[in-house]
């Protein structure tokens, strides 16, 4: 019985964006079909994983997430190097958690100095992420852009409320902008237009649709990302034809289900494996919908997702 495989008529393509610079720069995007639909289109650049590094020792992480980074959590440079040397990180995401005005409230100057040190110490692309506080991020990320001139950082989150000033600094010092919107396809498109109008060149723009983990609303991100990809690939919506960055690790590891010890809830199984699987499975869901860069935490979850990406792409040994 001859099978006539029904194919989707794709009319658009996700833009290819080069992240970082030098030999270890990473190119993302370029898809001409839905994720891993390789029987009807191309996925020239497989999704990549950026490993998280915090600029201050994390206070609320469960033991399972801290253990792989024992000894380096008070030194972002050592931490980043460990991610690259020991865990094979292809990208690093420096989370500037210490700048949170409701927390340590460190100054823009201090944060930028740390970002510079990390950027100088590594040769993989570096994402620098603020705290989503518009006033503080404006101060901090602008300073980061300036101090790290020439480092081709990826700066985020850039939101509607702070896009002008952070966007202008990113353009000025040639960093990539992550346009971040709250789980809404229309807002995402609008911010991409605004950043375009501001003068952010297409090749320096990626988007963050705002994601969450399993059990905490992943279905919203899931469907918004599917709709974004649909519009980009089948409706030629050029303003949505951008690679998607998902800042996932911190969402998964803050939920209570990764913190409950097995002794308190035997039916939940081993706490370490549970956390790893919640992160890896959440990442897999997002891969199904078009994630190009996943920001993740646990090395074991990252290994699982890397292998799953290779398997989905049919690139296993």
């Amino acid at each position: 019985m001859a099978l006539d495989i029904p194919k989707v008529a794709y009319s658009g393509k996700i833009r290819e964006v080069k992240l970082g610079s030098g030999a270890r720069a990473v190119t993302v995007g370029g898809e001409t079909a839905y994720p891993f639909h390789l029987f009807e289109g191309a996925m020239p650049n497989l999704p990549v994983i950026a490993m998280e590094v915090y600029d201050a020792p994390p206070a609320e992480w469960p033991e399972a997430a801290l253990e792989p980074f024992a000894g380096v959590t008070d030194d972002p440079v050592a931490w980043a190097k460990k991610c690259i040397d020991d865990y094979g990180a292809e990208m690093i995401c420096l989370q500037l958690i210490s700048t949170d005005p409701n927390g340590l409230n460190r100054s823009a100057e201090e944060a930028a100095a740390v970002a510079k040190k990390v950027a100088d110490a590594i040769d993989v692309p570096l994402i620098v992420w603020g705290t989503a506080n518009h006033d503080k991020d404006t101060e901090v990320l602008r300073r980061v852009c300036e101090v790290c001139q020439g480092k081709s950082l990826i700066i985020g989150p850039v939101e509607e409320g702070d896009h002008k000033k952070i966007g202008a600094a990113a353009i000025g010092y040639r960093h990539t902008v992550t346009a971040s919107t709250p789980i809404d396809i229309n807002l995402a498109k609008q911010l991409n237009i605004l950043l375009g109008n501001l003068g952010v060149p297409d090749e320096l723009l990626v988007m963050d649709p705002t994601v969450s983990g399993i059990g905490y609303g992943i279905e919203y991100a899931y469907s918004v990302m599917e709709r974004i990809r649909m519009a980009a690939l089948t409706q030629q919506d050029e303003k949505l034809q951008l690679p998607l960055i998902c800042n996932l690790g911190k969402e998964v590891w803050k939920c209570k289900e990764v913190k409950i010890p097995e002794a308190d809830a035997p039916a939940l199984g081993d706490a370490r494996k549970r956390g790893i699987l919640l992160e890896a499975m959440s990442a897999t869901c997002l891969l199904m919908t078009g994630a190009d860069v996943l920001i993740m935490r646990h090395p074991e979850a990252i290994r699982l997702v890397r292998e799953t990406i290779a398997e989905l792409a049919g690139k296993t040994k």
Partner: protein
Amino acid sequence: MPLTGIEIFKLLPKTNCKECGVPTCLAFAMALAAGKASLSQCPHVSQEAQAKLAEASAPPILPLTIGIGKRALKIGGETVMFRHEKRFENPPGLAMLISDTLEDSQVNARLERFKQLEYERVGLTLRPELIALKGESGDAARFAAAVGKVVQGSDANIILMSENAEVLAAGVKACADRKPLLCAATAENMGQVAELAKQNSCPVVARAPGLEKLSELTTRLGQAGVKDIVLDSGARTVRQAFEDQVIIRRSALVKKFRPLGFPTIVFPCEMTSDELKEAVIASAFVAKYAGIIVLSDFQGHSVFPLLVERMNIYTDPQRPLATSEGIYQIGIPDENSPVLLTTNFALTYFLISGYIEAGKVSSYLLVKDTEGLSVMTAWAAGKFVADAIAPFVKKCGIADKVKHRKLIIPGYAAAESGGLEEELPGWQILVGPREGAHIPAYLKTWKP
């Protein structure tokens, strides 16, 4: 493709007899097309029309049931490729593999674990629903004995796995009244397995290498009178299995290709020997179109995330998950504990209760029914305003649980504080933080 109202109208008697309860045949046709009426309401429709309409209205992916009673598993019946288009209908069943070569003690341990893996979430009970019994020994008597053990020790729905028709027959005999899924019919054993399925009214897995051969097999099974079919394309790599899931679903929905219009079964248990990776592979098939997912074993740390993921993906996007209205205790609150108020959107509830727990201050959380809307949306929609909140606070009984009269409302509902103080005489309204993440710090300042 489904018929339009006009196409249906042409098949109706056009007498406007009103016996269907609708004034005209045209109106009835429109109601049929919209799925709001059933053809059986028309007493005069011709047999020819009935046949045509039944053919056109048959679901593109057959819904079928495995097992019996309240816990029977319904799969298939899907109508869309993407959940935002409508919703996914029947969540994939999760199956735990048990081999008939396992020792009794191992089988019992698995059955025991299977029972324990139950979780309450937003008022729903999440649990896996299948045991896949594999006839690895090749011995019919041994298989039957193992099936007997599962029937005795568990009320799970059963998949019988063997390509040897005699082994399968022995298994069916041991659990025919549980309506097991027979796995699998192949080109070689098709005649015998089809007979077995018909005699016992059991659904059957059709297994063939590749989708073309699979289509031939399901066509032959259909001709042999087997209707309830589950598809196994034989793929045991993630790449091929994923591709097959997409093509099967699309062929059925877009092309109305009947030979592939059935739910599917996938076997992550045969794609890797790494326990964690198997669970991650399974998570991909929860999202992309599996009807049944067979795992080599169940552990809480893998089954719990899969069950929650499944609930998330299969949530109706038009109807947010909601938790029930009432007083929720967090920690061990007493008469001096803080009282916080929020809405019943499930995510809001999860986040807020999580943050209160993180703050380590035992509290009462009042959850107001806002039809599943979040704080800001509910407030904007007038469902989380003073004259809706006050009656709830009065009748929920919180006044009997605490000595103080302080109510902490979400920062985003600050505009309601004046109205609430009017509507709730004697209560002091405190405006809490706008962001849930700031609740722990806020609670540290609490004084009754």
